[in-house]
């Protein structure tokens, strides 16, 4: 019944992230939206690598007669998480600088560049 629940969750997370980025006016909320988007993408990678009954691929502890999962999706997710961390840290530091310059976090008032 809930066979596709993880995919529905992914779609929900990505849609929520895009909604936050497009319709929120607070910079911090936009940053949170991007983080939610990233979580959606990471969840997708994890779900792709999941196999029912599979065990973690640790070489020294390989059990006899059981299937091990391919570790590539986990490796991808780790990399994506690290990249996401770097992006988030830089984004938050830019928000701090913007707040110092403009005295506000509202995107409607941070509009020096146009035309």
């Amino acid at each position, binding site marked *: 019944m809930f066979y596709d629940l993880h995919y529905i969750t992914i779609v929900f997370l*990505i849609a929520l992230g895009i909604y936050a*980025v497009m319709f929120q006016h607070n910079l911090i909320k*936009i940053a949170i939206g991007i983080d939610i988007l990233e979580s959606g993408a990471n969840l997708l990678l994890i779900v*792709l690598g999941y196999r029912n009954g599979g065990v973690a691929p640790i070489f020294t502890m390989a059990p006899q007669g059981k299937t091990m999962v391919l570790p590539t999706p986990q490796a991808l997710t780790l*990399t994506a998480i690290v990249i996401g961390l*770097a992006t988030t840290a830089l984004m938050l530091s*830019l928000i701090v600088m*913007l707040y110092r310059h403009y005295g506000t976090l509202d995107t409607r008032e941070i509009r020096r560049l146009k*035309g």
Partner: protein
Amino acid sequence: MSWTEHAPILIIAAPLLVSFAIPLLERIDYRVRNAAAVASLVFSIWMVLIVLHKIWVSGPVVYVFGAKSAFLPLPSGFKFPVRIMFEIDHMSAFMALSGSIAATVGVIYSWAFIREKEGGLGKYYSLFLLMSVGMLGMELTGDAFNFFVFLEIASIASFGLIAYRREDPASVEASFKYMIVSTIGAIFVLVAIGFLYGRYDALNMAYIAKHMKLGIVERVAFVLLVVSLAMKAGAVPMHMWVSDAYGRAPAAVTATLVSVSQASLYGLFRVMFSMFGVTMNNHFGGWMLIIFGLLSMFIGVTMAMVQKDIKRLMAYHAISQTGYMLLGVGVGLAVLDNPVALKSYGLAAMTGGIFHIMNHAMYKGLLFLTAGAIFYRLRTFNLNEMGGLARKMKYTTIYFIIGAAAIAGLPPFNGFASKLIIYESVYKFNPLLSVVAMVVSVLTLASFVKVFHSAFLGPEISKVKNVREVPRSMVIGMGVMAVICVLFGLFPGMVVKYLAGPAAASLVNHTAYISSVIGGGM
């Protein structure tokens, strides 16, 4: 085997290593730091040339990290491409050559352009080299996830560099804007790669291309990849970040950022031609590129006409010129399934579009650097506060004339050569497209005549009285690009024969890309 076997990885290894060594080198002396940065990128150019030579001699170069073959044979006999690898054909090498030259010029120019007292120079050079590494990696890799990682390295480094002058609120704002747009694009690239991985259990581009069967998942992945990479390349209607980011980054960074965006353009072409090449309805894909191209050309140039900020004006022209590349390559893609048309004009259109990529990196880089030179002396980008600079800054003036003539497509500069190829071949496909391209070119000329007139000619305003020529490193940096602009304009036949032509042919030759990794037998 000689050490040149490892040239593909040395292209990115040298700048990557120096990038992290720079905080240490800075403790010795700032000259050591700058010299190391320049040396590492010059080394990259040398390695690219070695690889290019290998490709001429023996076809695409495949470099697998830590093993001979990308495949891991399982005990059951099933072979599986698990290893990360570089796959370098003419197109990759062409892009890497153009990118590494632009990055080298950027670093040389930065030597004097970014003053020591502005501070944070160690970090500046680290990020600059990281950005170059990301760009080169995107162009060389044969692994889809690796492509995403290099894309993010290049993007994150460029966010930092755009906001380098952090006391200027507009720089921070531009960087933040670019960051939001670019991060969302990169996440969609990751999702698309995840989709492809879910279908084919592989990240190797050639393996995916070989087994590609077009279904709904692949279509979604295709759309996600094309839209996000076109956005990173700055095509209209996803162009709003370009004018801010190019306009506000330090000039040396902008000149390289042009090449970094082109790495995304390369990714776009790679996805369309090599990964989805056989299975897609190429007529549709081609027209999609052509429409992106036309919109970019026209909207870019019309937005540029009204600008008063010299760098913002040039940034809109960068959008407009990207349109020419999309147009040329799009025409090639549209007739990919039709061998007669492909032979008579499709390949020529692609050659023109690809030739234009390198020309654009050179003359647009040069123009941004001259804008930076003006900023270095006057501390303003506003055209209304300039005038009579021609008498004071003679090298900058000459370089500006070369760059402006090249972008407007005047002979004998490089822009003329590539645009002529595009006009001629696109005319045979659809005359109307060619007419639009020419009109845009005329508008470009008009816009640059305006800039030249208001900045360099006319009476000297009071601010210009004490202006001198810019320091030597900046003159040399601009000189390198100007010389390339002139040489490519004087000998376009050589460039087309040895660089751009083979690059176009290698994009079209989808099977060679696959078989150089998979091997003919599998």
